[in-house]
């Protein structure tokens, strides 16, 4: 809803700007004839300067001068047409109408559909709107594990790492056996420590590994923890196992292969 108002303000500002110039048009510049006369006069002056500097032969001067005059003669077009005045109001209204309908119409076709809300399925929500809605939902349902997890994810999406950790912490107190939560929580903590997976972050990933040692995501993160700890062989082992467990067309396959490639490279060095 807030966005809709912003859009309307943007449309209104644009239309007001156009309307101003329809009611008070910018004054006209010189005419084509005035411009051509001035330019050809300047050419004549340059021709005199050219002959003084020897850039054109004396016997060519007259020819060049008559060429300038002839050029001007062919270019002059006395303007007999009179400007027709317009009624600015109908034009302003037409522009407002076309501008408003077209811009909102095209945007509704192009806008990404974020999290659909119960009230308006077609209205796109920004991340901040989503967070506001989740927060008000959690105020009413403080024990909702999924909502807290979503809030943590959304907060980190807009860079609020501390708020994200807070939300994950609350979710963790409700259910400490959820693999996804453990990994997301660990990542948020790592993000707050300049990307370092140590301390509590490492503990959470170890917990996830003990809960499901066959999970591809857990193996990936365990590899990162090992690599950060300088245990390159351990990282290779985790990632090779993850690759073995993955299907060939798994969307995350490239990420793990890239990581493995990096570590193998470093090991070679």
């Amino acid at each position, binding site marked *: 809803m807030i966005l809709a108002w912003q859009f309307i303000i943007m449309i209104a500002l644009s239309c007001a700007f156009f309307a101003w110039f329809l009611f008070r048009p910018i004054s006209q510049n010189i005419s084509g004839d005035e411009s051509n006369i001035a330019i050809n006069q300047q050419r004549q002056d340059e021709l005199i300067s050219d002959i003084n500097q020897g850039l054109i032969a004396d016997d060519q001067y007259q020819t060049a001068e008559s060429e300038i005059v002839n050029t001007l003669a062919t270019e002059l077009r006395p303007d007999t047409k009179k400007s027709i005045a317009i009624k600015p109001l109908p034009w302003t209204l037409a522009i407002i109408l076309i501008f408003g309908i077209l811009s909102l119409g095209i*945007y509704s076709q192009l806008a990404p559909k974020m999290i659909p809300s119960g009230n308006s399925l077609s209205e796109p929500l920004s991340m901040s709107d989503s967070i506001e809605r989740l927060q008000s939902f959690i105020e009413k349902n403080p024990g909702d594990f999924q909502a807290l997890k979503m809030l943590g994810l959304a907060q980190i999406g807009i860079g609020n790492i501390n708020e994200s950790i807070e939300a994950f912490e609350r979710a963790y107190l409700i259910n400490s056996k959820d693999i996804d939560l453990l990994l997301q929580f660990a990542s948020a903590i790592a993000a707050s420590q300049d990307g370092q997976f140590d301390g509590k972050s490492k503990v959470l990933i170890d917990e996830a590994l003990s809960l499901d040692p066959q999970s591809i995501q857990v193996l990936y993160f365990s590899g990162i923890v090992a690599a950060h700890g300088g245990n390159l062989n351990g990282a290779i082992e985790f990632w090779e196992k993850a690759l073995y467990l993955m299907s060939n067309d798994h969307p995350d396959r490239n990420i793990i292969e890239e990581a493995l490639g990096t570590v193998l490279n470093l090991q070679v060095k």
Partner: protein
Amino acid sequence: MLIEVGHFALVLSLIISVLLIVVPSIGLYQNKTSLAQLARPLVWAQGFWIALAFFILMSAFLSNDFSVKYVADNSNTQLPLLFKASAVWGSHEGSLLLWVFVLSLWTVAVSIFSKRIPSDLINQTLVVLGAISFGFLLFLLFTSNPFERLMMPPLEGRELNPLLQDFGLAVHPPMLYMGYVGLAIPFAFVLSALIRGQLDSTWIRWTRPWALVSWSFLTVGITLGSWWAYYELGWGGWWFWDPVENASFMPWLVATALVHSLSVSEKRGAFKQWTVLLAIGGFSLSLLGTFLVRSGVLTSVHAFATDPTRGLFILIFLFIVIGGSLILYTWRSSLLQQSNPFSLLSRETGLLINNILLVTAMLSVLLGTLYPLILDTLNLGKISVGAPYFNAVFVPIMIPGVIALAVFPYVRWKKDSLSRVFNLLKFEWICVVLLTFLSWVFITDNIFVLVAVGLFIWVVNHVLVLFIKRLRSKAKLSMSFIGMILAHLGIAVFVLGATVTTQLGIEKDIKMNIGETQTIAGHDFVFNGVSPHSKENYSGFIGDITVFKNTKKVAQLSPEKRYYQTGMPMTEASIDPSITRDLYVALGEGLGGGAWSVRIYYKPLVRWIWLGGLMIALGALFAAIDRRYFLRVKS
């Protein structure tokens, strides 16, 4: 929330471009001045919304908003601030937004600096520019939206291509785009003159300064690209005849021809047809470059990951622009017939020769760039056309161009006599032969270098003689004249730098143990070893090499081998620059036992290449601010 505002701002810009095409056109054809005069406010509003969208995307990069797919794909929290800002144009969607932003900057500039231009011409020109921006905004919004959101944002973004994590990314693309997109302005002036059927002195006069400024930016952009490639790629080369480099070089060649052709059209009323075709050709080639980079037909460090839809869109746009312009040209060709006569030996002929050589050179580059693509498309096999072809074809075409540059500024307009020109050149030829002979005796016997030295001396000589003659004649030194001699001097500096560095440069690819010394061009390179090195977004190794000349230390070089998060290895060369030579060292691979492979280059006069480029660009800027473009007209 801001992201949606940025996206909507682009939608508003698209609608404004529609209004810009329709409303002033109605005003122009029905003689309703108020509607025609709305062109400028529409341009300003469009410029404002596009700028807002651009800076919103930049703020998303700076604030690590990974809920935006484009940001998540091209930036991460560890990326230094400068690279975050320049990552905005590090990939397809953002670079297209930069294109649209630059086009809006040019359009706003035309609308502001247009007080001396007749209203009808300027309004029609803005309509044409509106049509171009409509095409690009449509492309941006429907196939390449940079504001796409992710349903589940990642915690960390991806790595920006390590090759692009450099100061070069901050300056090379914006400058290049200023030149590329700037060619839309002469094109728009020409098209509006054709549409109005008034191919008079006015459009020629006002096309030239814009052509000069965009040519200047294009020169700076290409020069910066060459400099960036030189220090970043670790090969010590300054031009690779890469297809995408060629894509920017072809419009430059045509724009060079255009600024010369415009000078004849402006001063002597000749070459009008040719000028119109060059203006259309320059912009069409810049669109062709866009197609080559974004369609996926090329594989290059410059080419963006693409999908065929995008390529098809640009191809259709290209056909509309070229086809539409040529139809207009044919329709109005009768108005372009009038041309003032000139004799075979005249300055006009010299400029015509210059134009023919430049266009021939452009066609040779076009052929070498497109030929492998055409063969591949027709399933006739894969071939690669590289430096040997381009050097063999391009250089012989351009040598007569440089000679013409040294001769024709002496030749008079309209008609001259051979004996007068010969008499004027006698002194120069003696100078050239004498100094080239001395170079042969004391410096080198390399024939290519001697030819370059001869041309350099000749051009410097002619510049000095022209300058002295102008001072003696007590005529005012116009900016246009200063610009011309500066640009011609820039060509000479470039030719000498390029030839000397190519012919006399030394390259050694060697294994070095700790404490080992290699001697190149009288310089002793002592390898002190390699140590681990890391920063926030990469880790790797840094070498330590001390350079001595005659036992005196002249440089301490620290080449790097970096590994970014993606695992991509990067070579960061270490250079000791000077105006006479560069000492260039790049670290290769570790070979065990403390030994490393090292590439050492000695590059004489390599800086002259870029100095020449900058002199050409500066010359163009001087010419663009000549007093004739500040003409005062009394109604």
